[in-house]
């Protein structure tokens, strides 16, 4: 199905032209002679692995970086974009992959930030709220203008980002991986919104890894690899397979479906779980779930329906109000994170840069973060650097982590590579149960593919794995059984074989499974 917009006309003069853009950083050329344009009313997708130079190109467009070479034209006129305010002045908007929202401010305040007010120096939040409401009505973006950002789920935060752009009436909007956090139905709704925006003559630059979305939404697709433009095509002229190949530079394999049957042995059993949420309301209510040895249990649901709290409750990061969590018959509810870890549960957290890794620390230090005091790595309180380095070098190699050295600060690595070493670290302890929250969010195809294969091999080796993901494709690809949560309740568990997107989508929306 293609919803390609009839307004998009390749013949119309481009609203944006970036010509011969080159940007060098010490030791790396992030963009090399890249040419890119957008016509009014079109969705032009920018595709590429992490590190391919998409973000750099967009940061140049947004005035965050200055190109070393090349020119930028808007509506035929050359412009110098030296700061985001220049970009904003030219009606360019950007929705960053890491949301640019101030958590301690309300939705309306975030929207009003940086704008002049109708009341001069005094803010006019009532006016802003009204305008937000009319925008939400028109585009179907449900958001309470008076909520604080910290109270909102990821999906809601994204709606705020869109509202920010609409509020500013941007003509050219960059969307950096906007669907990573949405349900299929939400993606459909989201695309309707985007189409609504292009029908007004706005141009969109869409950055995504999801082939089906790229093929569905795009008018044109440009692929970047290693800082260079590989080519520009249209969905009609290409296939998903071809695109993946352009991106990665080699043939991409999809995961084989064959897998040994999982055991009946229950590894993790959750009964009657009740857990408090951040906003006073319980995040999980009367929640039952089990994970068996040698299976991947997928937990699907719209962002903010209790998934994060579920992972935190299991791993000891959030107090349990009621109910039990048993690991192979042993009660672990109420234990602290270290005790849970020692009991045999590993955890790949949702916010990898906040909870999973320390950006300033080296890759090696991050790898031994949890077990640096174990006998393997220390003696009498002193770290055994030789053992640590050898071990880390091996994991980095095994898990194909792309890093200059193991002493490189983690923050210098791409999201995919950070995630790879986190998963390497978590699987290394040979856990009985692995909780993986959003394991491939924001991770490029190559890395996602690799992470999936490692999760599957761990499964096949008998580990019980819970994959909590808002990416339904991922859940359907990986899981043996799929549990769906909605508003903190378990809507039911379906076998992979019986699951369809439609059925899961209904459950995610709160319709209980009839099974």
């Amino acid at each position, binding site marked *: 199905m293609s919803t390609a917009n009839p307004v998009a006309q390749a013949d119309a003069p481009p609203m944006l032209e970036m010509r011969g853009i080159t940007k060098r950083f010490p030791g790396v050329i992030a963009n090399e002679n890249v040419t890119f344009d957008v016509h009014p009313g079109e969705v032009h997708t920018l595709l590429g692995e992490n590190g391919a130079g998409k973000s750099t190109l967009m940061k140049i467009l947004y005035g965050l*970086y200055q190109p070393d070479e090349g020119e930028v034209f808007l509506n035929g006129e050359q412009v110098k974009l030296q700061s*985001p305010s220049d970009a*904003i*002045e030219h009606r360019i908007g950007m929705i960053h992959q890491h949301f*640019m929202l*101030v958590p*301690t*401010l309300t939705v309306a305040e975030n929207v009003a*930030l940086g704008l002049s007010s109708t009341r001069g120096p*005094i803010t006019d939040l009532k006016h802003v709220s009204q305008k937000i409401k009319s925008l939400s009505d028109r585009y179907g973006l449900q958001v309470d203008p008076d909520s604080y950002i910290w109270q909102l789920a990821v999906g809601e935060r994204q709606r705020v980002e869109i509202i920010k752009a609409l509020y500013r009436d941007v003509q050219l909007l960059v969307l950096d991986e906007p669907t990573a956090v949405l349900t299929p139905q939400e993606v459909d709704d989201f695309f309707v919104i985007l189409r609504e925006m292009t029908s007004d003559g706005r141009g969109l630059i869409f950055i995504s890894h999801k082939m089906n979305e790229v093929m569905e939404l795009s008018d044109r697709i440009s692929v970047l690899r290693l800082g260079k433009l590989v080519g520009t095509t249209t969905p009609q002229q290409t296939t998903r397979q071809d695109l993946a190949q352009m991106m990665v530079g080699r043939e991409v394999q999809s995961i084989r479906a064959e897998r040994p049957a999982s055991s009946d042995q229950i590894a993790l059993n959750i009964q009657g779980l009740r857990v408090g949420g951040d906003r006073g309301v319980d995040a999980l209510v009367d929640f039952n779930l089990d994970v068996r040895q040698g299976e991947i249990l997928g937990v699907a649901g719209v962002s903010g329906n209790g998934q994060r709290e579920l992972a935190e409750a299991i791993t000891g990061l959030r107090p349990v109000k009621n109910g039990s969590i048993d690991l192979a018959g042993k009660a672990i509810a109420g234990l602290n994170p270290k005790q849970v870890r020692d009991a045999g549960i590993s955890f790949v957290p949702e916010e990898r840069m906040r909870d999973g890794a320390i950006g300033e620390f080296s890759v090696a230090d991050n790898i031994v973060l949890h077990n640096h005091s174990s006998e393997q790595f220390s003696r009498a309180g002193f770290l055994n650097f030789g053992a640590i380095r050898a071990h880390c070098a091996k994991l980095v190699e095994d898990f194909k982590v792309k890093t200059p050295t193991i002493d490189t600060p983690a923050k210098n690595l791409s999201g995919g590579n950070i995630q790879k070493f986190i998963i390497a670290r978590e699987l290394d302890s040979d856990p009985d149960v692995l909780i993986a929250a959003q394991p491939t969010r924001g991770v490029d195809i190559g890395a996602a593919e690799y992470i999936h294969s490692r999760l599957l091999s761990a499964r096949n080796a008998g580990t019980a794995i819970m994959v909590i993901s808002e990416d339904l494709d991922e859940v359907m690809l990986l899981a043996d059984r799929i549990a769906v949560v909605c508003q903190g309740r378990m809507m039911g568990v379906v076998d992979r074989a019986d699951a369809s997107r439609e059925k899961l989508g209904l459950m995610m929306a709160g319709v209980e499974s009839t099974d």
Partner: protein
Amino acid sequence: MSDILTTTVIVATIASGIRLATPFLLASLGEAIGQRSGVLNLGVDGVMLLGAFCSYYVVLETENIWLGVLTGIATGLIMGLFYAIITVPLRAEQGVSGIGIYLFGLGMSDLLFQKLVGTPLPIDQFEEWPVPVLSEIPIVGEMLFQHTPMVYIAFLLVPVVAFIINRTTFGLSVRAVGESPESADSLGVSVGKVRFATIMAGNSLAGLAGAALAIELGIFQQNLTNAMGFIAIALVYFGAWRAPGVMAGSLLFGMIGAIVLQAKTLGLIPRAWSDIAAMAPAIITILALIIVANRFRQPAALTKPYVRGD
């Protein structure tokens, strides 16, 4: 006991607490503005000292109190300019830079005092400005509305600062810059300009606090502030970075000081306990700080220089 705790004594004590609170309030309001934008300034005491000396000197020479007040503000602005340049475009570590400003203010105020004045000479002091009508109210009028102008200015600045922070577009930018400078930057808010402005505003208030102190006391001497500026920083944490909270902290500190003083004057505190009692404001404020501090989180970007695209 009942004879001693007369209305007169109570009124005098509360008025005294308000006076004691005033320089802390001015300085901590300024510090709170800076911290809301993510800038910690440990140099407050130094700015107060130099502000105090310069305003003292101007009043000594010109006998014009208000020119002295303006001089205090101007001194704060000049020191703020230095601090802003060091910490915003040059991105120096804020803790060390602040201590540098403090030491500069401490040393320079003393040096100038030695060179230009020498022997402490008294200067004109503020006179009380009873507020018409309000000061006639029995008891309350005397407590609240028979003060020197600096007291009114300091307390009127509380709603003003709160309004600017909470209700203006500039205040919104300040809060955003202190919490998530990258978000503010992405919306075209200049993190550097906002921080420059808050540093200048904060330092001008610190300079004003120094002027208020010197002119209230009518004298200057070495280290006149006696580390008031550092207590003002603690009061910002106490007040959870909000103007009313900062006011509550300053008043608590001033009131306890005044109560202890009054109790000593009346002989209610045995001599042997005198020195311990003198620590009461600090101890009680620290205890209150511990209780309050756990409920509020400091601005997420506090002390962090902003580097675009990092």
